[in-house]
Each structure stands twice: as structure tokens, then as C-alpha cells.
């Protein structure tokens, strides 16, 4: 365990660091498999005829599903870079703390989404077992028309 703050100059300099955009294809089959894995029989996710006659006009994604990458951006690299800095800051264990989504528009099968991720912020807290850093990663999702469909704020806990 390090003395003093786990917020190093290296970490501070990384705030705002962004990934290359990730391009994702939203396929009907991928949506159906995701809904099936959740155990959600909602026909809006799986029944093309039903969805066509709904106000959405097409099968839509359950919350939290954004299709499959056609082009992978640099999120893993960014997390690796941050992970290295956290290790050097004396907080090497990283846990998934949770996620907050805002949904602006429905995501339909056939959409092509572009997501941009960035290292948005961090704050330090004294936990029961020592220093903890709460790291916020922010991801925005745009559809093929350039409209913002969703925003995610994920929390990583480093200790």
C-alpha cells in the first residue's frame, strides 16, 4: 500500500484520454441471442413481424446492447494504459463498479453505431482496506445519422 494519495501525476495527465471510435453493427440475430441470454421473451427484441407493426417499425435492442464491433477501437488499449498507471500508483486490483446509462433514441436492427470512449474522471476514497480510486469511463453512442442514441458512464474501482 502506498503512503499518501494514489493519484499520481501520471494518472492526472491521462484524464480526457480518448479511444479511437468503435464501429458497431446491430444485427437482428445478435439482438435475439442477447435477449435470449437474458431470458427476456419480449417480442420487440425477437419477433420481426411483431416489431414491424409496433411504433418502432423494427426489432430494437434491449438496454445495454449495442451490436457487434465491425471495427474495434482502442478501448482495451486505453484500459491497459490506465491499468499500468494504476499499478504504478499502488492500486493494482481493478473491479467493475457499475454502469449508468442514459438512453436517448431506440436502437434498431440495421443501425450502424459509432462509440467514443474516454477516461473522464477519478476520485479517491479511503476504503476499509486502504486507498480506493473510483475511475469514470464515459462512452457515447451515435447512430448512422449522427444522432446521439445513448451515453454510458462506467465506474472502475482500483484498490
Amino acid at each position, binding site marked *: 500500500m502506498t503512503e499518501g494519495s494514489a493519484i499520481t501525476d501520471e494518472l492526472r495527465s491521462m484524464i480526457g484520454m480518448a479511444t479511437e471510435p468503435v464501429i458497431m453493427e446491430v444485427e437482428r440475430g445478435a439482438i435475439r441471442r442477447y435477449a435470449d441470454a*437474458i431470458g427476456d421473451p*419480449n417480442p*420487440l427484441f425477437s419477433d420481426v413481424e411483431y416489431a414491424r407493426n409496433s411504433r418502432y417499425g423494427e426489432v430494437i435492442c434491449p438496454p445495454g446492447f449495442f451490436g*457487434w464491433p465491425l471495427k474495434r477501437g482502442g478501448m482495451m488499449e486505453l484500459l491497459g494504459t490506465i491499468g499500468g498507471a494504476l499499478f504504478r500508483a499502488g492500486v493494482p486490483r481493478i*473491479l467493475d*463498479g*457499475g*454502469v449508468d446509462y442514459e*438512453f436517448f433514441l431506440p436502437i434498431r436492427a440495421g443501425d450502424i453505431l459509432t462509440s467514443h470512449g474516454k477516461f473522464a474522471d477519478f476520485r479517491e476514497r479511503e476504503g476499509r482496506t486502504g486507498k480506493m480510486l473510483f475511475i469514470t469511463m464515459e462512452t457515447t453512442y451515435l447512430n448512422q445519422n449522427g444522432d446521439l442514441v445513448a451515453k454510458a458512464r462506467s465506474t472502475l474501482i482500483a484498490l
Partner: protein
Amino acid sequence: MAKQLYYEDVEAGMEVPPLVKKPTTQQLVKWAAASGDFYQLHYDKDFAQAQGFPSVLVHGKLKFGLLGQMLIDWIGEDGVLKKLGCSYRGTDFPGEDLICKGKVTNKYVKDGEHIVELEVWTENPRGERTTPGTAVVALPSRG
């Protein structure tokens, strides 16, 4: 589909009908494949035990998905899920009941939208809230 819920039907303190699930190891594997999250903690028991857990863990994001299912069932097709967030506070294991619950905390009209705020969570069989969170939905109005 269930009948449509309206803004006027909802009051603070009202509970969302609970969604009771019992994830199996098979469901975790299906979810890993469907989501692309292949972290071994969720399907490799030896890996999980080496990390100090008795067994593989239910994915946090799967619990998020189950909370989403509960809310979308409740708000009906004319409702809109605007925000959903949760913290992965406690660990849940396959083979145990995972109960999704929610409670209305506030309702108001803003910019012509009929908004309902909720607290949501998953509960284990010991009554512990393992995934606390909040949600915001918009409902149709009879008005």
C-alpha cells in the same frame, strides 16, 4: 404483452412487480457468448476459486439486463426507459434466486414528458441488495 401502464397509475412508494430469476451456469455461458464478455471469472470455477470465490459469479452487466427486463415489462410498449444505472455491490452465484425489485421514488411532468423516478435493485435469497441502482422512465398520460 401486459396492459399499458399510465402516469396516473403510479404513485411514490409503489413497487414494481418483482422479477424472480435463477441464473444457471448455462445462462452465464450463453450471456458471455451473446455479450462478448469472456472474463473467466464467470465460467471457469478454478479461476473463480483462485480469486477467492466459492464459485463462478453472475456478470454485473447481466444483472443490469435483468433490471432492464423488469422495467420494460412494467412500463409497457408506450413507456420509455430513459436512464438505468446500477452498482455491482455484491456477488451473486448461479443456482441462487436473484430477485429484481423496484420502487417509485418520484413523479413529475417536465418539458411535456411524464417522468417517473425509481430505485431498483437485485436481491439475493438472504435479502441483501447486491445491485442497487436508479432508473428514470417516461410514461404515457391519460390526461
